[in-house]
């Protein structure tokens, strides 16, 4: 739902609640009780859920992730003019939606993951604003092939790729996450933020 509509619901709820606050004697009548129930319970819960859904959607945006200073270099790495940089190649060629680039490949991260992931998300905010994030930042767990396979599984280039089908076990190991797609010698150039100073960058046409 668009933000302005949620804001409209919030404003209507504030007006209704304000009416009851200004004249609590309204609740003496049955109609007033219904109004109070709507203004103090139904509408706030509804507006709160709409707002939460809106925040969750917005937090999938690339711009949201890049608001943290530490993510700046990772955002920059999406523009490296080198096809061996996996995130950059995906971002520049539209293999992932550009406005949700981070979320598309890190679907189980922080608030989108389990409860413990959500707690880690809070820790990120604590580290960003209270202490200092430790450098270099690292994923909590090795990157899961699932994130690659939810797009690549079934595609011809993946299923019939010469190295993927070199032997039957390789494909089985990739699909069961025993052999990482990011293994050395395979797709092993990821954000590579340490070397960005020497990289050439793609400038999208406006």
């Amino acid at each position: 739902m668009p933000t302005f509509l949620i804001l409209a619901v919030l404003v209507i709820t504030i007006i209704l609640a304000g009416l009851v606050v200004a004249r609590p004697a309204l609740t003496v009548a049955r109609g007033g009780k219904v109004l109070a129930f709507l203004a103090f319970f139904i509408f706030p819960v509804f507006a709160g859920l709409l707002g939460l859904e809106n925040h969750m959607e917005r937090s999938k945006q690339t711009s949201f992730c890049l608001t943290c200073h530490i993510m700046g270099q990772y955002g920059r790495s999406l523009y490296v003019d080198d096809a061996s940089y996996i995130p950059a190649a995906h971002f520049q060629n539209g293999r992932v939606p550009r406005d949700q680039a981070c979320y598309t490949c890190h679907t189980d991260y922080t608030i989108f993951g389990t409860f413990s992931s959500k707690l880690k998300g809070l820790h990120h905010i604590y580290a960003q604003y209270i202490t200092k994030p430790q450098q270099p930042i690292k994923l909590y767990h090795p990157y899961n092939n699932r994130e690659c396979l939810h797009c690549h599984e079934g595609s011809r280039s993946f299923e019939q790729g010469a190295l993927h089908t070199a032997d039957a076990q390789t494909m089985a190991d990739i699909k069961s996450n025993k052999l990482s797609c990011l293994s050395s010698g395979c797709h092993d150039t990821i954000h590579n933020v340490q070397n960005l100073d020497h990289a050439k960058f793609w400038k999208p046409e406006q």
Partner: protein
Amino acid sequence: MENQSNTIHSRLRLAGGLIILGLIVQALSLLWNHPLSFIAFTAIGGLLLAIGIVLYLLAVVNMAASKPEDGTGVQAHSRQS
């Protein structure tokens, strides 16, 4: 009885005030695309909203509980107004 009515009204005012404050925080947080706005939405807005709703529900329960104590069958809160 007047005291009881005033108490209920003041609880409703307090509950409503907290709910309005929570809603304002939530509305403001929607205007800002930043991780802190999400925290403000949930931790501050959500908390104020939750406390306000709980206070309101407690006031409703108290309102209902005061009814049987009144032998006339007319709600004490209603008779005042």
